[in-house]
């Protein structure tokens, strides 16, 4: 019952595919104008759909991403990329697309999700600080040894975010300078936000010596 309710909610929230609309094509020069930044007033650049469309054009040019890779969830525009190409996509979006800030990296364990094809989803939230435009990059990794390239060379702020994803989900980031646990104790061995880890743990929380009155 509960699963059905939740499942239908997930389906209802699943967005329609993002479609490149003709106004974007007519403003083909929009992306180049944004890059030069000279002849585009800030008020014009603040048109959000224009920036989104320029990102769509950019990624379709550079990586051949078609419309099926794009989706929309409420106000968020999302693009799904392969885990092998995620670093190049992020680099392209940062250097050419103007998405200069990495807001967050987080993970989702899609174990027993309805219609899920992969185990872990890793979410990169990007922000264009000059226009306020946001873009969400999704990628998927699988057991065993879920591995992603680290975004640390692009954003230094990815350091702790990737450590948190590693701590909670056990996804390793190759190229990370100091990949160790950030929230859980060092001697912890499990990855607690994985769905096959029980909510109450496996007894780690009560694995301490007992101090009695006479001893203290």
């Amino acid at each position: 019952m509960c699963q059905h309710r939740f499942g239908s909610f997930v389906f209802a929230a699943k967005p329609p595919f993002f479609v490149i609309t003709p106004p974007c094509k007519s403003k083909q020069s929009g992306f180049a104008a944004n890059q030069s930044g000279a002849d585009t007033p800030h008020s014009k650049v603040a048109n959000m759909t224009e920036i989104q469309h320029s990102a769509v054009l950019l990624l379709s040019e550079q990586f051949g991403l078609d419309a099926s890779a794009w989706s929309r969830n409420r106000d968020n525009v999302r693009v799904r990329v392969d885990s092998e190409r995620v670093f190049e996509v992020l680099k392209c979006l940062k250097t050419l697309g103007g998405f200069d800030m990495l807001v967050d990296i987080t993970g989702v364990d899609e174990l027993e999700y309805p219609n899920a094809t992969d185990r872990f989803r890793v979410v990169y939230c990007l922000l264009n600080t000059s226009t306020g435009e946001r873009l969400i990059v999704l990628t998927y990794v699988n057991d065993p040894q879920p591995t992603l390239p680290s975004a640390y060379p692009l954003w230094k702020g990815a350091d702790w975010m990737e450590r948190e994803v590693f701590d909670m989900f056990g996804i390793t980031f190759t190229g990370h300078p100091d990949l160790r646990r950030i929230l859980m104790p060092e001697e912890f061995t499990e990855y607690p936000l994985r769905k096959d880890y029980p909510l109450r743990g496996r007894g780690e929380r009560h694995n301490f010596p007992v101090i009695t009155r006479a001893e203290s």
Partner: protein
Amino acid sequence: MAVGLPENVFMTTVNAAASWCRKNSLWPMPFATACCGIELMATASSRYDLARFGAEVMRFSPRQCDLMIVAGRVVMKMMPVLQRIWLQMPEPKWCISMGACACSGGVFDTYAVVQGVDRFIPVDMYVPGCPPRPEQLIQAIMDLQNKIQQTGTLNGTEFDTRTQPTGPQPFDREEMWRIEDAALQSKVGGFGV
């Protein structure tokens, strides 16, 4: 023949005199990790005025304290710290477990939250509430004063006999069952199975 005493002399025992001194000058160690700490601060403020009971001198060094007030949830990463601070406090010392989280874990029945600090350190007084009102904490301190006066000795021999943990056993049977069930379930259910 009774010996007449002057009016400003009274007879007592050394234990009672020592306990009387101790109970009226409790120096708390505020181990405040959550919202109970806000109520603890309010208790020490002018409206509730913990100074009326001689317990207003909050010290942030455990070596100067004799009353630990655990206010808030304690996670497994904090538990060794709590034990270390408890061991650093000089004797005689007492402990108040303030709030539902410190007493039992509260609503946080998760992998990281210790289900009651009394499993691992001795606790004298439990204060229920989420968070407790300052009056409740004051009541706990008054009860603790009463306990110190009743049971206290000069050299702390009342602590020597308490060799058993005050809390429940860390691995009670129910928890062991839960752990076994969880381990079984994790082996059965895998992705795509």
